[in-house]
């Protein structure tokens, strides 16, 4: 089974060089996030106003910002924070959303109605605006940005998990598991849930890009990450004031990196969907 999945993965990757590219790019991002602090050329927080606003050069690849900090080092070091925010937010919404969705799909009835109503109420808000409101109400901090991003993504996991479980629970292996003496909860957790994982994983990787975008959007308007910490969204915000006077490198490099990261996750999600469900290919 595992071998054939790997084979199929390899087939898809070799058929679709863009997916292979996305895979490599993802590896690169992870590598940069893990090892970036070891090889960045300058201290990302050290300001030196005598070299402020220098254009990209051999010494400063991405130029320097308004405080003379090296933009390249800051973009590299921000990778870890951005991926951390997105990963933890997506992990929280995956756990809560899929648990609620599984319960709703398996038990139906009032559990389903309450969970469904919860998802509908969250989706009744424009999601980014709701995230703004949550961070404003709970306090402007990084952890609240993560919670807010997690909360607005929960409904999507609920829907996917619920839809999958509703199909799976009528299959015969569920009856077999119950007849063997498994309790309902155990059957759900160890028999039904693993069979819903592929669909959930697709949702998860499609969600990563949107989580990064959302978190960067929040920090762009001044929520969450505080200066002088390096994060792509806040770096674009800091560079925004210099765009109209022509110092493009402050905002463009972090913005472009952010775009590349989101692009990479979206491509990966598409590739994963092709692997799991070739019919949904658009």
């Amino acid at each position, binding site marked *: 089974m595992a071998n054939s999945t790997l084979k199929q993965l390899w087939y898809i990757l070799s058929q679709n060089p863009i997916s292979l590219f996305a895979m490599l790019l993802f590896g690169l991002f992870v590598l940069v996030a893990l090892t970036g602090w070891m090889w960045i050329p300058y201290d990302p927080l050290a300001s030196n106003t005598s070299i402020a606003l220098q254009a990209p050069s051999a010494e400063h690849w991405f130029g320097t910002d308004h405080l003379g900090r090296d933009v390249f080092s800051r973009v590299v070091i921000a990778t870890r924070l951005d991926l951390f925010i997105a990963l933890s937010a997506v992990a929280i919404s995956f756990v809560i959303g899929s648990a609620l969705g599984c319960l709703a799909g398996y038990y139906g009835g009032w559990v389903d109605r309450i969970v469904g109503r919860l998802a*509908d109420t969250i989706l009744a808000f424009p999601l980014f605006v*709701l995230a*703004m*409101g949550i961070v404003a109400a709970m306090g402007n901090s990084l952890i609240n940005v993560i919670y807010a991003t997690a909360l607005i993504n929960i409904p999507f996991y609920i829907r996917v998990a619920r839809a999958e479980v509703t199909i799976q629970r009528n299959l015969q292996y569920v009856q077999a598991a119950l007849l063997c003496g498994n309790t309902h909860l155990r059957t759900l957790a160890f028999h039904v849930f693993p069979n819903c994982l592929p669909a959930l994983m697709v949702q998860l990787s499609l969600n990563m890009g949107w989580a990064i975008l959302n978190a960067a959007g929040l920090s*762009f308007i*001044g929520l969450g990450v505080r200066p002088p910490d390096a994060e792509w969204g806040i770096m674009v*915000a800091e560079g925004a004031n210099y*765009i*109209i006077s022509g110092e493009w490198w402050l905002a463009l490099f972090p913005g472009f990196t952010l775009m590349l990261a989101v692009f990479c996750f979206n491509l990966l999600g598409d590739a994963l969907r092709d692997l799991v469900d070739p019919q949904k290919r658009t």
Partner: protein
Amino acid sequence: MWTQKLKLIGQRFALATPTLLGVIIIAFALTRALPGDPAVYFAGITADEESIQQIREELGLDKSLVIQFFVYCENLLKGDLGVSLSTGQKVSEELSSRFPASLELTLTGLFLALITSIPLGILAAMYPNSWVDHLCRVLVTAGASTPIFFSGLFFVFIFYYLLGWAPSPIGRLDFIYLPPPHVTGFYTIDSMIAGDTETFWASLKQIVLPAITLAVFALAPIARMTRSAMLTALGSEYVKAATANGLNSRTIIFVYALRNASLPLLTIMGLVFSYLLGANVLVEKVFSWPGIGSFAVDALVASDYAAVQGFILCMALLFVFLNLFIDILYTLVDPRVGIDG
């Protein structure tokens, strides 16, 4: 059949009521979830114990949560959203004076997105793997991956700084022009009504870049959905039957396929609006557009909670009504609705 449809529309209204209630409850919960004591916030930094207590009574914070909720709903019905700390004006007035600016921008962006993405999606579905299809795919992928604040800044850099085609991103109108007399609140329309072509062009120039930024963003999901819905429709039995009966291709595409493809398209419009209203906040910030989004961002930075909460409630109510509108439209468009129901 029409009475059936009217009944269904009534049901949609009824279904929107619990959602509306949920939205109001969450908005209320957000106002009461402020870190620490809201009275201390609203009283300001220099307040002493006595004035804090006074504010607490004024805001009704000494009463139970249930009573507070009813007071909140009562104020809401009166259109009272509290007073903005940073401007000293009523939040409802601040929002309603800025609302036309946001609406003008959002509608222009949506309009641009619709007139480009739907033909693009149709062409991509008609000629799969042609250059139109590839263009569609590239635009969809790029639109879904680009942070909207970044694409906005990028456009400013290219079209204002490098090429000098666009005016500087300083809001709805350059300082040298006076806003046209208020009729609709849309500067482009108002200046036309006033017969002031110069102001019209000036305001049009200001809105082009932010509207395109929004359009590029909204284009992606619409084009993607149009393409896949049209592909499904064009591959269906009824299109084959229509082709076999010798109907011309224009009738097949626009009457048979597009009308059926418009249903999934309407379904996704809810999500598009959700994204668009959020993206609007970021675009307004980038282009210093004086709408409710940039008002909310400024209020956020200034810890002006009444203003932020008023904004969120406003957006949520707007979104609920937009969704209701889409639902009703869906009921009207779908010929199957009402026959078996």
